């Protein structure tokens, strides 16, 4: 007997709009200052009415297109009704039977496996609820409600149960997060709650007799990191296997419903949650306060044209255009769109993709990680770095010298890019880092050194190639920055004369 783990992921991402979905309150993560980002609409005050945010809808459609979904030409809004203190209207405006997008897919590279295509059942737009904070001590004190977050635009993306392992789930989430970053749709920050994930997990047990049994599906909630998703999946798979072996309960058995379990990140276990008194009857109702949205085929095409390059496409392009290894491409592209843009500018400026890749994946990335800063806050601009590397490529300075310059630029903190360029020249000048390859300048010194080292010249003529080394060193000591290759060449020529 062996088994397959079957996983479907339901992801909620907060959109990067300036204002909330149905009102003009600012869309900002602000847990320290409760209840200052509300208005009659998101408070659900009597008499208030919602009006749809154009940008939120546009970002949603872009996401649907990027996920290869069909975009509905007619889409409407529905009220999902339930009672909870963080839901002031006692309904959430969402989409029920006519989501704006459906039937797409996302391809993700799974380590050691290759590309995995994961189906997307649907993506729809809805509003977020506020936050209800329980008494942490477990006592009977009142819960506190903060409605700052209430009304924030959320995209709910539901995958097909195509995932077969924790690794696949992680790969899917990584690629989804990257894609949304590239599109500028969301910053997918699980810590701040701008990305939330629930996992639906069950097992398909394959008997030796050829039978196939499915265990009941479990929905795992409260996953707060990608690592947590992986751990929860593995934990659930083991737990369900044990339960099946003990009880033999399977999907479809009478009395067997979908179970909801929470993930305890501290103890790394899933735990049962109290089943609701009544099965969730959301009494969906088309929202009479909102009108439908219609899109023509042309309008959908226009939006498609306006889409930026996806990570998958960027990887392909970097691979061919800059002849980079798959590993380098991966590191660069997966850092995010801004970082990939940075690299591309550097490569363009210096004309050597491999040089640019080395510096970006090593020197720059190392600095960023130490500073824990995004590329947007990096003190050395892409143009500055590119210009510096161009000098290396043109053999004007050595790589070692370039690192010296780079180190000094880092110390300068933020300066204007134009200032940086002149600063680079200044540093090179001050430290004498320029490679001297002007034969005229070197001629005299080379001759002088040879004159003083006739024995070595003779040794070289009689076949001792290595003898020339010290002579090169002498010339280079005399002329700071002398280009070793050029000096060597000159010595050889003069010895040969």
């Amino acid at each position, binding site marked *: 007997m062996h088994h397959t783990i079957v996983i479907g992921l339901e992801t909620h991402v907060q959109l990067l709009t*300036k204002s909330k979905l149905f009102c003009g309150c*600012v869309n900002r993560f602000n847990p320290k200052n409760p209840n200052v980002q509300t*208005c009659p609409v998101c*408070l659900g005050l009597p008499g208030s009415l919602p009006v749809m945010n154009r940008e939120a809808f546009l970002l949603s459609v872009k996401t649907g297109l990027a996920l290869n979904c069909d975009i509905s030409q007619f889409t409407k809004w529905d009220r999902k009704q339930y009672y909870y203190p963080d839901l002031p209207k006692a309904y959430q405006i969402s989409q029920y039977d006519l989501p704006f997008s459906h039937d797409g897919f996302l391809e993700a590279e799974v380590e050691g496996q290759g590309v995995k295509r994961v189906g997307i059942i649907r993506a729809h737009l809805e509003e977020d609820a506020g936050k209800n904070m329980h008494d942490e001590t477990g006592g009977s004190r009142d*819960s506190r409600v903060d409605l700052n977050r209430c009304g924030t635009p959320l995209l709910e993306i539901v995958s097909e149960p195509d995932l077969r392992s924790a690794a696949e789930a992680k790969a899917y989430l990584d690629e989804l997060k990257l894609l949304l970053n590239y599109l500028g749709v969301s910053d997918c920050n699980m810590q701040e709650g701008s990305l939330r994930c629930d996992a639906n997990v069950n097992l398909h047990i394959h008997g030796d007799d050829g039978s196939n049994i499915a265990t009941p599906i479990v929905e795992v909630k409260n996953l707060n990191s990608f690592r947590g998703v992986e751990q929860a999946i593995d934990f659930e798979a083991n737990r369900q296997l044990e339960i099946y072996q003990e009880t033999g309960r399977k999907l479809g058995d009478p009395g067997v419903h979908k179970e909801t379990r929470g993930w305890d990140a501290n103890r790394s276990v899933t*735990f049962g949650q109290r089943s609701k008194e009544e099965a969730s009857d959301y009494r969906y109702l088309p929202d*009479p306060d909102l009108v439908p949205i219609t899109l023509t085929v042309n309008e959908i095409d226009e939006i498609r044209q306006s889409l930026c390059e996806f990570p998958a496409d960027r990887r392909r392009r970097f691979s061919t255009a800059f002849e980079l290894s798959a590993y380098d491409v991966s590191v660069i592209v997966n850092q995010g769109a801004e970082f990939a843009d940075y690299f591309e500018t550097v490569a363009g400026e210096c004309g050597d993709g491999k040089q640019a890749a080395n510096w970006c994946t090593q020197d720059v990335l190392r600095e960023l990680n130490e500073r824990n800063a995004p590329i947007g806050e990096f003190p050395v601009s892409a143009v500055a770095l590119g210009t510096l590397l161009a000098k290396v490529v043109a053999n004007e300075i050595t790589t070692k010298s370039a690192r010296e310059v780079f180190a000094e630029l880092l110390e300068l903190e933020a300066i204007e890019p134009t200032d940086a360029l002149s600063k680079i020249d200044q540093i090179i000048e001050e430290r004498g880092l320029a490679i001297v390859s002007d034969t005229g300048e070197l001629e005299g010194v080379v001759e002088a050194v040879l004159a003083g080292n006739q024995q070595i010249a003779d040794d070289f003529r009689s076949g001792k190639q290595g003898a020339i080394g010290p002579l090169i060193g002498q010339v280079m000591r005399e002329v700071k920055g002398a280009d070793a290759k050029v000096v060597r060449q000159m010595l050889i020529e003069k010895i040969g004369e």
Partner: protein
Amino acid sequence: MDRQQVEKTALLARLKLSESEVVKFTEQLTGLLDYVAILNEIDTDDVEPMAHAVEVSNVLRDDEPASSLARDDALSNAPKSDGVYFLVPPILTEG
């Protein structure tokens, strides 16, 4: 509508009904539901539902932030608050 349905609906609607209300409503609501059953006389197979009274679509607003209420105003009608949060009794939870 029978008594059980009335009680189930009252739970769904979060309405605490007294015994006399349950009895009264069971009778009155049954009467109303019997009356509206006349809608079943009509064949509506080919009819589109009319959820809106006006044929309007694509009403969208620009993504521009506008001013919010000051916290005091937002909390001004709260039945219970500590000046910063709305306060509600805890939900009865397990585990």
